[in-house]
Every structure is written in C-alpha cells, then in structure tokens.
C-alpha cells in the first residue's frame, strides 16, 4: 500500500439545495497520476477549488502530507505545496512568458518583498525560469507577451507556472484542452516525468491522454464519486459507461 500525500474525506459543498460536491472521498498517492473524469457540471472544478481553498467547503477534511490543511487559506495552501492550473487560462497578460514564470518562482525564493534590486538582473531566477520554459517548449517565445501567445501556448504556460512552484502535489484542470497532438504528447511526457516528484490530480476530457497517463481513475457524477479504479477497471465499469464513457470505446 502506497502512502497517501493527499487525503480528502467527505468534502461537500452546496449552493442552497444544490449539492455541487457530495461527501467526496478521494486520495492521491506518491508517484501517481490520479485522473478525475466526469460529465460537464459534475463538480470536478469545484472540487479543485475546494482543495486549493478558493471555494469554502461545508464539511469534510483535507490532509496534505499528513498535515491537516482544511482550515488554511488559499495562499497558505499554495505556500505549503498545492499548485494548480485553471480550467480557463489564468496568466498575467501583459507580462512576457518568462516574467510569468519568474513571478511563480518569487515566493519559493523569498523574493516577494525585495524592493530595490532589479528583478531582471537576478540571473538565478531567470535561469530557472528558462529551464521551465524549455520543459514546456516555450523557450523561443520567452519574451512574447502572454496575451499574444496562442491558446495552446497559454495552456503550456499555465503548466509552467505550476511547475515553477515545485509543489508537493499538482492539481491540473483540463491542461490539454485545445492543445494540438504534439502539444498533448509533450504534456503526457512531461506529466510522466514530474509525477515522481509531485503526484498529479488530473481533470481531463481527453480520454486518450487520461488512459495513457493515469495510474488510477475516479469518476464523478452529480457531485459524487461513482467509481475509482485502474484504467482497465474503469473502462469495464458498466455504471461509468452509462454516465460518461459510453459503449463505443
């Protein structure tokens, strides 16, 4: 039995009578990619928001690396090692690609409040940022304003921002949405490489990518986890076929 790095128990969130997440229990092991799939509106992104702390949960608990983070703020959770991407690209539009990455490196390197040294003269920060840009294949576009990047490149940059934080876990919300084949392959290879350092909870609609990557898959429907298992188990699960996958795969 592998150790759990992220352990979520009975997490619930309701808006009035509507339960967006309903007593969700899910975990993430070391060295693992755990995919979370389900139809639109099933509660996947809300679950991510609850884990990062941007949406307050009603009940439940979240343990990260044996530390209870249930009552921590979103910033505190990010500081102690939860790194995310957003469903819709959320970057700093007027910053260049490399400056976006540098921003993400500042907290770890205790440079947030450094006031009188030019950040652009900090060779260490920019060298690290360049390494990350190379990982996400954006080296040639490092000086391009983020707002001028294509949709696919913005998705890559999102992942780069998460990588720069060197977190304990990654929460990736549809990182491959809108990527072409080479972009998707790059992401698949990258995720396989980084999961040993920081396991990944992955929300993704691209089933080929999910089946290529995931060690375990959980299926969410109407705010409830309806199945968890290996890729083969999930593929064969009748209930999952009914609610999400269908019978053509």
């Amino acid at each position, binding site marked *: 039995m592998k150790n759990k790095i992220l352990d979520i128990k009975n997490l619930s969130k309701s808006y009035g009578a509507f339960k967006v997440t309903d007593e969700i229990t899910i975990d993430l092991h070391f060295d693992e990619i755990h995919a979370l799939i389900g139809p639109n509106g099933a509660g996947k992104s809300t679950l991510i928001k609850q884990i990062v702390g*941007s949406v307050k949960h009603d009940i439940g608990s979240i343990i990260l690396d044996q530390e209870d983070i249930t009552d921590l703020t979103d910033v505190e959770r990010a500081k102690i090692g939860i790194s995310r991407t957003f469903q819709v690209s959320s*970057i*700093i539009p007027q910053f260049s690609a490399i*400056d976006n990455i540098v921003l993400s490196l500042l907290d770890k390197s205790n440079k947030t*409040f450094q006031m009188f040294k030019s950040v652009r003269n900090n060779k260490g920060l920019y060298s690290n940022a360049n390494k990350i840009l190379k990982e996400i294949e954006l080296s040639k576009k490092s000086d391009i304003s983020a707002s001028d990047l294509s949709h696919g490149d913005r998705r890559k940059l999102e992942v780069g*921002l998460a990588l720069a934080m060197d977190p304990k876990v990654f929460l990736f919300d549809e990182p491959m949405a809108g990527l072409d084949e080479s972009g998707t392959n790059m992401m698949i290879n990258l995720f396989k490489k980084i999961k040993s350092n920081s396991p990944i909870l992955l929300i993704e609609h691209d089933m080929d990518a999910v089946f290529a990557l995931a060690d375990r898959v959980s299926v969410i429907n109407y705010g409830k986890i309806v199945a968890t298992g290996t890729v083969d188990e999930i593929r064969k699960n009748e209930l999952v076929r009914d609610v999400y996958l269908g019978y053509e795969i």
Partner: protein
Amino acid sequence: MIVEKIFNKWILVFLFLIPVLGFIFEEPYYITLTTKVVILGIAGIGLNLALGYCGLISFGHAAFFGLGGYVTGILSFHALNSELMFSWPFVTSGSSNMLVIWPIVILSSAFLALIIGLLSLRTTGVYFIMITLAFAQMLYFFAISWPSYGGEDGLSIYMRNSLPMVNTMDPLTFYFICLFWLLLVIFISAKLINSSFGMVFQAIKQNEERVKSVGIETFKVKLLVFVISGTITGLAGSLYTDLNRFISPSVLNWQMSGEIMVFVILGGIARLYGPLVGAAFFIVLEQTLGSYTENWQFWLGLILILEILYVRTGILSLFEKKLKYEK
C-alpha cells in the same frame, strides 16, 4: 519606450531650466508655478504607485496630502508662537525645522495609510473607492470643525519652515528642495517598479487570483504599496504647505483627491513621469484658460473626456506615438 525615456529626460531638463530662467529674468512667478507643478507631481507619483501600478483606485489620497500639510502647519504654528503642543506625556513645542518636520510627516502619513489600508483593502472595486473617499471626508470635516487650527478658515504660517544653512524663503532655493524630493521619489518609484516587489504588485493589478495561486499574500503586498503611496503623497502635502505658508481643509476635500487622480490620468496611468506631466498640463491650463474664464474647468473636463475616448494612456503616450511617426 525608448522615445518616452528621451522625453522624460527632456522633462527634467525643463524642470531645471524654467526656474533658472525665471530667476535670471526676475520672474519669481514662474519659479513658484514650477514649484507647484513639482509638488503636485510628487503627490501624483504617489497615487500612481497605488492606482496605476497596483490597480488600487483610491479616491481618498487627499487624506494623506492634507495630513502632511496639517502636520507641517501645526508643528510650525506652535514653534512660531512658542506655544506648547503637548505637555503630557512629554513636553513638545512644535518645530519649524524641515529636518524634524519631514520625518514626522513621513511617519504620520505612513501610519494613516496603514490604518486606512488595513480597513479598505478588505474590499475591492467601487467599495474600495467609497471607503477611501469616506476616510478623506472624515478628516475634511474634522479639520473644518477644529477651531484651534483655523477650522474652515485654515491655518497660516508666517515664515516658511527652515533648513540649516539654507534660505528657504528664497523661491529658487525652495524650488530646488522640492526638486530634490521629486528626483528622490522618482528614483525610489523606478527602483520599486523594476524590483521583484514591483513585479508582484503590477501582476496583482492584472490578475490577483493568479498571484494568490502562486503563494503570494496579495493583501500584504497591496497594503505595503498603499502605505508607500500614501507616504509620498503626504510628503507632497508638507511641501505644499511650505510653498503657500498656509493650509486649509480644502486640501482634504474629495476635490483634491480628484485633482491628484486627474494628474495621473492626464499624464499617463502606470507611467513613471505621467503624473508630473499631468500636473504640469493641469497648472498650465489653470493659468492660461483661467485668465480668460472662471469656468476653465469646463474645458479641462472636455479635454479629459477626449483623452479618455481617444488616447486613454495619457499625454506621454501621445508624445511617444508622435515622435515614432516623425521618425
């Protein structure tokens, strides 16, 4: 951007030349006018840090400008009248020494900005605008109803505050004192904007949620920017009181906050020299149009509307485009 930098250097050349020419041709009026531009430019640069670079639309910077002015006026008033300010817990009789006054102004403005920031930065958008406005108006009404220091009529100080071995009553000398502060404020602002801290607060303006998600406490960053911004504007208020040798509640009124905001918008939001250019434009307009009509602000409003509709990024950007086209 390079063209803008050249233009900025020309601004500094003019700031040296105009008062010197005023002195040579014995026209102290122009020295006083340029001094006013420099002081209001400092106030605008202070606001620009919060508004232009960090996206904090403060409509209450008159509070800091007025506080700086009143602290200067009150300290000077007691020193000149040899009256005690306090007798408990320690005895103090005010001061007319700028070297004493400036640190007190800086500390008190920073403290006020800290208090206002702690409360107002918990809100965003229109609520932030209204809270900052409310704080400034509170101080305005307090000043009006404080008869010890002139109430509605304001407070006159008969002698400009002093600096050791410097004749501050000489207009050109006082101008260069103000210019020193302007250059220092520009230097500090430039350093801040280009630093890691500057990168963070400029990112907050664009996407605060993203900045939080990379583990940065945006509240602390915004609070610090607000305090620095308020402190700079407070310092400008102190110099303004010394320039006029007078302080009245009008500098605490919302109109003052609006004027400082106009300097920033006219010159160029998030441009280092923008508020200085905006203040100069405002003063020139006041002096030229004001000599023809009392309603010169109508024309200011019209110019502001046209600028927002067609230029948006301020006078400096207009110059940049023109110069690029000429090339």
